[in-house]
């Protein structure tokens, strides 16, 4: 597949952003129940988000024909190239995440400054997902020239981010203490939001492509397959979490299904480029 490195880059970057948003909201809503033990467990999420973001950056560089000239993207900022803005967004998000994670890992406490830095990092994560969407919302590519492109990318961030957060929480084996209730609520809300986005996109994207006479011989079947995998994966952990069960296996299977669905969906997205007339 021609743009496989971009599939990996966008999925991983959105995963990191989604994981940070979900975990950041958990921490911001936790109030006084944050203990050193809780922070240690939440720090694992932040470190993992950093690792995933690093992997995303490596994937993006492998896409370049001249990776050693990568710094030339700075010149693109002068005319606001969407790609240069995307690199700026990922740098800002990565920098803020590194700063915040470094502080919290080192001090094992939260103060007003680190709390504000976390809020900023959450906002930068959202900005990053939109910046990536801006790159692909091109008038020259009819299949991508729609608000559904942004929606798909936010869907990816939430489906994988919430599923990964759920897995990490399930893997904490009850050590979250009082934070468990907040964590459960936030991940379920994120998961249900993701679920709604999956359904909305499944119902509308096929129609958008059909209107452009782009859908191939398989019709909308691939879209339903991707969405089905995501839905199944999300329900694998949302239902147990709502019922108050802690199921590591459910979360693991759920994450695997969601990632499979999202990767397949992203490959389908990039393949739409070949449907261009010229």
């Amino acid at each position, binding site marked *: 597949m021609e743009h496989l490195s971009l599939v990996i880059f966008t999925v991983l970057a959105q995963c990191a952003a989604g994981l940070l948003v979900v975990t950041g909201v958990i921490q911001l809503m936790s109030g006084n129940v944050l203990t050193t033990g809780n922070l240690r467990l939440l720090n694992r999420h932040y470190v993992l988000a950093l690792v995933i973001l690093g992997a995303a950056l490596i994937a993006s560089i492998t896409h370049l024909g001249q990776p050693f000239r990568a710094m*030339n993207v700075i010149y693109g900022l002068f*005319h606001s190239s969407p790609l240069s803005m995307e690199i700026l967004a990922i740098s800002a998000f990565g920098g803020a995440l590194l700063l915040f994670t470094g502080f919290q890992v080192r001090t094992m406490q939260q103060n007003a400054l680190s709390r504000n830095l976390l809020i900023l990092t959450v906002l930068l994560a959202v900005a990053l997902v939109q910046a990536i969407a801006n790159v692909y919302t091109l008038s020259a590519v009819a299949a991508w020239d729609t608000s559904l492109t942004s929606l798909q990318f936010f869907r990816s961030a939430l489906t994988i981010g919430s599923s990964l957060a759920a897995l990490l929480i399930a893997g904490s084996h009850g050590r979250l203490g009082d934070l468990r209730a907040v964590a459960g609520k936030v991940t379920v809300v994120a998961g249900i939001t993701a679920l709604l986005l999956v359904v909305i996109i499944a119902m509308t994207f096929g129609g958008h492509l059909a209107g452009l006479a782009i859908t191939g011989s398989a019709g909308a079947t691939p879209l339903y397959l991707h969405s089905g995998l995501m839905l199944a994966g999300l329900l694998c952990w949302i239902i147990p979490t709502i019922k108050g069960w802690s199921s590591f296996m459910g979360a693991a299977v759920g994450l695997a299904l969601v990632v499979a669905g999202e990767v397949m969906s992203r490959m389908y997205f990039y393949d739409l480029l070949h449907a261009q007339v*010229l």
Partner: protein
Amino acid sequence: MAQYGFYFDSSRCTGCKTCSLACKDFYDISVDRDWRRIYEYGGGDWEQNKDGTWEHNVFSYYTSISCNHCDSPACVKACSTGAMHKREQDGLVAVDQDRCIGCQYCSMACPYGAPQYDAEKKVMSKCHGCFERVAEGSKPVCVDACPLRALDFGPIDELRAKYGSEASIAPLPDAGMTSPNLVIKPNVHAKPSGDKSGSVQNSREVK
């Protein structure tokens, strides 16, 4: 300085592809790239008349397109390094291969398929209007090579005064998208941009 552009006479073009091959030969372009692409746009079907007789409305024509050196070039706006640029002296759009990082974003952004990745040099490449030949007073290689004299090149104001200003012919996108410096004399069967009655018949040749 003058803005240069191309004129293409679709009523003369036979789709021989001499223009494309002349360019490939002159610039030693690899097999997988075409700085000038000839799209065969065709369609139509049989229709039954009220009296039971059948008629067909099958059509086909060629559009020879390189880079249109647009007034609002999508590739330049997209370029993440500024390597893709519009020259001030002649308005031709060219890529600085020493700055290009080969991200291929320009090829996604261009609605005409002009920027193409050079897998050997690992940077982007495209029609640059033969600006070196133009500076010497010659025309681009493709224009001189056309045996039907279906191509012309010059200051776009002169071309428009001589041939009109039509550029929105299928399978090309509407000219309002990037304001191409291109004038087309439509084929008798020409369809407007956005037409759905036909399709590109030689997609494997031009992709």
